[in-house]
């Protein structure tokens, strides 16, 4: 007879047991562990010394890069250019303020108990672009104008990615709903829009935006290059977004539509309260995937003469004063991208966990 309160069997615990179970459970697993361990040690060691031990961090110029490791001095020296591009030094506080606001809005999103973090996030999505619209170019409230041709570096990358992301989501939702509409004209327009934009490479879109669009616009109507690029990126991105969201819409069981109909909810209430919340939640991984790929695709603006972070780095590594700093430059860019993309990814995982109401209908 079983004991009245049976406990689950005790599993062996402790580091030795863990290693035995996971690393050395059989002879071939032991062999694999040893081979992989050897590879890790032989590759990580030199990498570590290149990045830290043998690297030069401080100094006045190229001549101080004496170590055999990385010359971080170069990054240090040009950091201002990598972050702000040609934005005038005495006005950079405006950009700094935007960075600060961005951090204030989104860092709380990672802290579970932060009071009112929803409102910070909401401001980040709606208020922040408005503030940026006035602050960064200047020209209002007595602020000096800074032409968009002077913008560059990380700041430009963030502007492109941020606007692209927050504008493409609502446009994508509208397109996805339109594509599933019962009205043939609306559906037709959305299908054509999506299929055309999605079938064109981003490089082509950017070329068209910078070279061909001005030819079609009437005289005197002239967007600056950055706005044109932004519009191109946003429309291109929203076509992708629409298809991701459509995937979510199609996964909603018909019963949900019928229940909403039977309760007398009209089209917009049904869509806004029942269908979209479930559909969007389902496709968070797809949406985030699209965001991250857009974030990295912004580097393509280099080819129309905008200097994003990759562009600024690339233009300085050819400086004759600095020799052989290309690797440092690219590692730096990769690291910056990784920080942001990893942040986005972590946040989305957080969100998925929080929104999971433990249902599968």
């Amino acid at each position: 007879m079983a004991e009245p309160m049976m406990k689950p069997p005790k599993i062996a615990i402790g580091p030795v047991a863990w290693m035995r179970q996971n690393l050395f459970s059989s002879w071939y697993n032991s062999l694999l562990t040893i081979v992989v361990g050897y590879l890790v040690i032989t590759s990580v060691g030199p990498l570590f010394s290149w990045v830290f031990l043998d690297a030069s961090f401080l100094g006045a110029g190229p001549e101080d890069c004496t170590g055999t490791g990385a010359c971080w001095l170069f990054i240090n020296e040009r950091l201002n250019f990598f972050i702000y591009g040609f934005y005038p030094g005495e006005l950079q506080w405006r950009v700094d303020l935007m960075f600060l606001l961005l951090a204030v809005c989104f860092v709380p999103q990672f802290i579970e108990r932060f009071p009112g973090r929803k409102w910070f996030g909401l401001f980040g999505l709606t208020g922040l672009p408005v503030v940026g619209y006035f602050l960064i170019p200047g020209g209002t409230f007595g602020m000096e104008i800074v032409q968009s041709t002077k913008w560059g570096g990380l700041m430009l990358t963030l502007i492109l990615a941020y606007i692209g992301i927050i504008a493409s989501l609502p446009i994508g939702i509208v397109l996805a709903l339109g594509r599933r509409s019962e009205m043939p004209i609306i559906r037709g327009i959305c299908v054509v829009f999506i299929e055309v934009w999605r079938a064109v490479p981003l490089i082509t879109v950017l070329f068209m935006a910078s070279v061909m669009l001005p030819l079609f616009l009437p005289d005197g109507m002239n967007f600056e290059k950055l706005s044109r690029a932004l519009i191109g990126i946003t429309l291109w991105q929203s076509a992708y977004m629409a298809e991701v969201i459509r995937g979510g819409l199609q996964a909603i069981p018909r019963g949900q539509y019928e229940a909403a109909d039977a309760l007398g909810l009209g089209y917009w209430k049904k869509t806004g309260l029942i269908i979209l919340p479930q559909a969007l939640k389902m496709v968070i991984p797809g949406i985030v995937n699209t965001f991250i790929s857009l974030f990295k695709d912004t580097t393509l603006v280099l080819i129309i003469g905008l200097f994003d972070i990759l562009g600024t780095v690339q233009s300085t590594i050819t400086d004759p004063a600095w020799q052989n700093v290309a690797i440092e430059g690219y590692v730096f860019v990769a690291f910056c991208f990784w920080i942001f993309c990893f942040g986005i990814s972590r946040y989305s995982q957080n969100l998925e966990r929080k929104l999971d109401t433990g249902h599968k209908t």
Partner: protein
Amino acid sequence: MGNTMTDQTQTPGPQQSVPSQTADQPDIIRVEAMHKWYGDFHVLKDLNLNVRHGERIVICGPSGSGKSTFIRCINRLEEHQRGKIVVDNIELTDDVRHIDTVRREVGMVFQHFNLFPHLTVLENCCLSPIWVRKTPRKEAEADAMEYLKRVKIPDQANKFPGQLSGGQQQRVAIARALCMKPKIMLFDEPTSALDPEMIKEVLDVMIELAGSGMTMICVTHEMGFAKTVADRVIFMDGGEIVEEAPPHEFFTNPQEPRTQSFLQQILAH
């Protein structure tokens, strides 16, 4: 709280099967010469049905006989192509306003519950009163709690549907429909997707509701329920209404051969 529930204090006991208390009531649903096709397939053929205020109708029949399609036409989840359906003096046409008005007055309970999984039980119940009836949130929540008490699950109000058993989910679905204070309730095989031990808890709620004077149309295979609460039983086969009779007559003395063979099959086991 809706006065529908307090109108009639005495509940018909299980024995007291269907006196026609509703004989003098006006019709609330009129279906006249209604036809429906899916493509070329003629699903519903010349249906005629009048339902009086407070009447309880059970529709039964073999699967594929069009019974679900029929009641789904009554709140226009399905369109009919010929004939006329008038609900609460409003004719169902393509006019979206008419459809919305009718749906506000007609509650529906589905075979697969169709609760909204991203909302709690209470939010499921309050959603429509708040957004469609424009009831203030406080009031809607208080109402919803009353109905949840009535279906005997007030303690689950803050859970998500996915955390409840099938029987509990179906009772929430009934409460959700009642929160709109409908004049008519449609039940589309409400117990067919349930485990046997949960069927009773849902039927009990439906029997209690029938006792309160609600106009009900139920598509169901629960013949015990039909005998207990129905004023009329309708037998459908092949998209037609084959026979229509008070339950006592229907079960003891069916006229049509198709009804007889159907009853033999389901009552045999």
